[in-house]
């Protein structure tokens, strides 16, 4: 580390040169002036102008400084370099809305934060090193020893960069390969997602192994360390490791995959991601994301609607007046269900007479839907359709009512056998 620090401090020697100091002073001055201008004089300007000036004012002033130095015969290469860097960053900000046109917000966020900006910053840092030194020289700086191998700064950087790129960048190729295999093999979407995840893990594992080989770490040493580490795993990070292994197991088993629908606390939830530690599920009811440790799926019962197929059988219950013919009501219910979008014709809807209630006949209408997450909305649609159909066919949906008969003589009772409701005429007394 002393060598790295010494190299870093060595660069400060350039500040002994008036030409370098002059260039840097101008760049710093340009940045300060642009800040002052933005805060004091541009606050009243239109928003679009403020946005553009925030992006380009400093660059403009730095550019003017370069022109001035050039005109007076002074060195200005460093100013141009810093100007290029500043403009590059502005371009990165400018393409943000353009990316929004072709990518969804999550993809854009991932692309910008995980790839574009880190790559720009690292490339800028390397370029800066190349201005002050050579990347090869800096890369050759020793930083220590691992498993009997001398580790240099360059090896550490390459190892980190490749590992990062493999982990972050393997998503797209793994996704494309999984899609290709899906077309070839005809597998389901959830299987494709599982395959994509497995491919990513495999690529990351091979990539990290390749990095270790590139550094020159002896595979035997790695195996020995892995052996020692396994003991540590048993005690220290058992839970994390257990969750990781559970995640892999679930992927291979296929019971919990991205796209699957599981019942969690009585609510259908869709599996969004199967992470290293936890599974992310989405609950439609309140748009909540649930983070459930992978090992929970090992130890607890779970109900799935997507184990062998994605069909869900839904059911609504309805009461119809006692006076209506059950056969015609059942036929109407089945016919009505078929008219509702989302209700599958096969298997066909099935209506059943469940029971005779005190004031109505209770029916159940069972039907099948393709997306288990749409149960509530499908039931709502079917209920609405039934109301409309019953109204059209004069079928009463009765509200709670009770028929009471007065205890008179049998003759009087025969002449007076008219139903009476609560509140109508005489007050009925419960028997």
């Amino acid at each position, binding site marked *: 580390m002393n060598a790295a620090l010494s*190299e870093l401090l*060595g660069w*400060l*020697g*350039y*500040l*002994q*040169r*008036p*030409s*370098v*100091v002059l*260039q*840097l*002073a101008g*760049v*710093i001055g340009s*940045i*300060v002036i642009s*800040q002052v201008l*933005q805060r004091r004089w541009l606050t009243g300007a239109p928003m679009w102008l403020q*946005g553009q000036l*925030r*992006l380009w004012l*400093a660059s403009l002033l730095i550019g003017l400084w370069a022109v001035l130095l050039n005109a007076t015969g002074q*060195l*200005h*290469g*460093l100013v141009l*370099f810093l100007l290029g860097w500043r403009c590059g*960053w502005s371009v990165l*900000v400018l393409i*943000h*809305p353009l990316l929004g046109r072709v990518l969804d917000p999550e993809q854009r966020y991932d692309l910008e934060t995980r790839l574009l900006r880190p790559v720009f910053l690292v490339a800028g840092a390397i370029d800066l090193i190349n*201005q*002050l*030194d*050579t990347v*090869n*020289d800096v890369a*050759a700086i020793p930083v220590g020893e691992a498993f009997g191998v001398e580790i240099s700064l360059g090896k550490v950087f390459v190892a980190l960069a490749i590992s990062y790129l493999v982990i972050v960048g393997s998503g797209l190729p793994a996704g494309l390969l999984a899609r290709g295999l899906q077309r070839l093999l005809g597998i389901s979407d959830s299987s494709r997602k599982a395959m994509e995840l497995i491919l990513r893990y495999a690529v990351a594992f091979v990539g990290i192994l390749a990095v270790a080989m590139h550094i020159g770490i002896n595979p035997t040493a790695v195996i020995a360390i892995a052996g020692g580490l396994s003991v540590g795993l048993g005690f220290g990070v058992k839970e994390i490791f257990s969750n990781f292994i559970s995640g892999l197991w679930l992927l291979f088993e296929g019971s919990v995959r991205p796209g699957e629908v599981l019942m969690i606390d009585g609510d259908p939830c869709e599996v969004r991601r199967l992470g290293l530690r936890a599974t992310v599920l989405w609950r439609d009811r309140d748009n909540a994301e649930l983070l459930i440790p992978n090992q929970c799926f090992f130890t607890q019962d779970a109900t799935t609607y997507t184990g062998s197929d994605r069909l869900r059988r839904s059911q609504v219950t309805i009461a119809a007046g006692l006076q209506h013919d059950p056969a015609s009501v059942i036929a109407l219910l089945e016919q009505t269900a078929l008219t509702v979008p989302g209700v599958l014709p096969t298997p066909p809807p099935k209506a059943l007479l469940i029971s005779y209630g005190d004031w109505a006949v209770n029916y159940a209408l069972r039907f099948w839907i393709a997306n288990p997450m749409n149960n509530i909305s499908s039931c709502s649609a079917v209920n609405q359709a039934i109301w409309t159909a019953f109204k059209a066919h004069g079928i009463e949906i009765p509200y709670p009512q009770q028929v009471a008969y007065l205890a008179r003589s049998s003759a009087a009772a025969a002449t007076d056998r008219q139903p009476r409701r609560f509140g109508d005429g005489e007050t009925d007394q419960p028997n």
Partner: protein
Amino acid sequence: MPMNWRCCSIRKAETVAAALLLTLVSGCVARQGTQHQESQQRGVDTVLYLYAGVRDDSSDLEGFRRDFGQIFETIADEFRQINPRVHVVVQVYRETSLLRELTHRNASGLGPDLLLVSNSTALKLAQAGLTRPPRLTSELRQQFDAATLRRASLHNPTRLASLPVAQKAQLACFNTARLPQAPATLQQLLAISAGGNTVGLALNPTGLFWSVGALGAADALQQATARRPLTPQQQQAVVRWTRWLQAAATQQKVTFYPNQELLLKALSSGQLDWISCRSTDLPRLRRRLGTKLGVAPLPDGPEGQASPINELTALALGVNSSAAQRRAADAFAHFAVNPLVQRNITLTLKEVLPVNRYVTVPAESSVVLQAMVRAQQQSRTAETFASLVHLNDPRVQRSQSLITQLVFGESQPELTAQRLIQTLQRQP
């Protein structure tokens, strides 16, 4: 708005960066203003940036850094004993990339204060105006012989492009496990190859020029290089050399290689038993061959002694230095050629020869030094060629092409000799 958020983050980052840089630079500006007085009074640390050029065909940069570090530490440690406030930062570049790098860096003010490069590169950089000529006092001039000054100067010996600091001797390197004794003559060289030993020769004219003297063609080719007409005898001498090359090429165990790096690799891996090498290649070869590495002078011939071209290593001076850096760089360059330092480098490393003519090398102490001293004597045969033809001379490329055609049987010795003379006589 995401745009605003980003702009804010940029603005904050810029403000912090500006504040940091301002603090740093203001401190340095303040230092700069009073630098001269301070340096007089209590001494300010001066940082010197030294670029070291590595041969273009070399693939062993790590090895170069290690070997170069040894040479450099020898000079720098002694220099720091009398200039303790000077720190030297070394950066390594390939010699072919130096022209581009210097053009770019000099424009930024981030160019080097010193460059330790081959004489050819130093001349090229000086010609492009990327380095400044060293201050050559009469006292300093006396340290060098006339031939060395001629080689290091662009137009006249009073204006040097750089200050020579060392000579890399061209030698014979061989594997003693397979070849107990190095061949002393060209005939012996072909005889050992006929006997089963593998021999590697360079295809480039500067790497092959050692064989010219042994066949009596050195004067002829040097005459041609100086654009003077050749006598029939001299032309015949050149034909003799090209015939020898053809004869060598027909030997099954003699192989021609396009560059020095391949020769070194082949000897290191055991593919070859004998090659021509540079004294600065010895540490690398020693690492691979250990005690099996043999070193000897290049073989003489029936018509004279070998004519190796001992490459000069020179210190060129940068153009971006501050006044203090300029003074320190000049002092460093002058220090590097003083007799005591030259002697120390030679005896400690046994890889380079001194350029200071007042330094005598005690050759008896080492076989390698003996070979190097012998190479120094032999190289006088090639002095004119060495001073007129540099590595980046276009005539070198054209000559290599002619030699390649000859050794692959595409051209006859007489025609090759004639074309070679014509090529060398052309204006570079």
